[in-house]
């Protein structure tokens, strides 16, 4: 039996006034926002957030005359949340996104990727290359072995999602959507006041939080990693692309630090614009969402030959 759709509290409507829409993707109910008209811009979130992460970015894009599509990954936000660990593979989440993009028949698409919105979004873009116009990349990766030194550490990274520890810390105590996200923004008081409860609230039960500890386990740290081949393919194929691309990074991001990650992106996509450095840790949209919206607006305007 499908899970009931989660209902947002009325207070959120002021900052998230968008009509909820749903599509069935691979048998799961996916929530997405689809606002505006014009060439589409697809905003992809990661772990443990949902479309709400882009709330400060969306207005500038709508004002510039774009269609903005913001899906919640299956397992997050207002989408259905499978409770079988095997439902949460990288390929299945990429396929879910492909399913949505095909149903909406999106073309001339600017794909904006953050965190796990990267590996899923890049997989979709490479598989549906005829639909893609450009890429925007922030605080994510697309290569094997491991993305950065941080992800090889026992403390805090591997301990956090270790067997039984992950279901306890991130499941029972919602540690990633709560404290973890709080620690990964610059303006923590503002985040606590306006957003933390929203991220925690859409993951109300331990079973609904499964993807928060399953996603970290999909980050490849050695040759036995389940997604090794997918990441090897992703890096190789992205390096062949000529899509106009833009890199945006948080100055204070110590998890996906700019020296490691943005630099590597510049090597994979030497034609990419940026990196544009903004105030922000890993969840840079919380600190600089509006500025990011303007950067994307201007980037797409230049593609259109309009210039900002």
């Amino acid at each position: 039996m499908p899970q009931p759709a989660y209902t947002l509290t009325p207070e959120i409507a002021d900052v998230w006034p968008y009509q909820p829409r749903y599509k069935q993707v691979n048998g799961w109910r996916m929530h997405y926002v689809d606002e505006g008209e014009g060439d589409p811009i697809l905003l992809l979130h990661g772990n443990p957030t949902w479309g709400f992460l882009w709330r400060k970015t969306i207005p500038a894009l709508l004002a510039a005359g774009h269609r903005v599509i913001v899906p919640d990954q299956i397992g997050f936000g207002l989408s259905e949340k499978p409770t079988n660990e095997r439902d949460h593979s990288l390929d299945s989440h990429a396929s879910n996104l492909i399913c949505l993009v095909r149903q909406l028949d999106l073309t001339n698409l600017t794909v904006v990727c953050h965190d796990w919105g990267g590996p899923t979004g890049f997989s979709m873009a490479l598989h549906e290359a005829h639909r893609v116009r450009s890429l925007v990349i922030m605080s994510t990766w697309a290569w094997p072995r491991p993305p950065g030194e941080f992800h090889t550490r026992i403390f805090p990274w591997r301990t956090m999602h270790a067997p039984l520890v992950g279901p306890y810390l991130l499941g029972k105590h919602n540690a990633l959507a709560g404290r973890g996200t709080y620690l990964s923004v610059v303006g923590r008081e503002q985040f606590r006041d306006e957003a933390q409860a929203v991220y925690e609230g859409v993951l109300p039960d331990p079973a609904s939080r499964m993807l928060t500890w399953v996603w970290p386990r999909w980050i490849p740290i050695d040759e036995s990693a389940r997604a090794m081949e997918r990441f090897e393919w992703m890096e190789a194929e992205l390096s062949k692309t000529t899509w106009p691309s833009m890199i945006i990074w948080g100055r204070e991001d110590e998890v996906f630090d700019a020296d490691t990650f943005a630099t590597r992106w510049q090597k994979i996509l030497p034609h990419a614009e940026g990196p544009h450095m903004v105030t922000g840790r890993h969840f840079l949209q919380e600190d600089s969402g509006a500025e990011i919206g303007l950067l994307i607006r201007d980037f797409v305007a230049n593609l259109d030959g309009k210039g900002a």
Partner: protein
Amino acid sequence: MSEITIIDAPDLTGKRQAFALREDRVGHYDEFREFFSRTFNLDTVGLSKPGYLRAPSGMEYAVIFTGRSGEAFPAGVELFALPEALEPLDDDAVDRDLWAILGWMIDGVGAPWSRQDLETTGKVYRIPAMR
């Protein structure tokens, strides 16, 4: 010194199994799967019976192992408290017990995993059992 004791199968008359925690992929880091296999002699016991623990609150727990075709055994592990059949759980006590069980597990898995790292992680994330 661990606050967790492995015990023989308790008398389950008048008790119920109350779900506490589930791990579907105990072999994600294989040393954790090996710890449970070694500790509960699972190469011999297999699925024939659960393991049992006594935690700091005095509550006893069943350790139920799960198998999955094509994967090393055990594939998963589930912890069930064993309260009196109709008695509600003391959620705070169960939470502290689970934290103690995790510490016992990490001790048993051994280096490079450490209880100190686990406890520091618990403090960073402000887990009630670490306050």
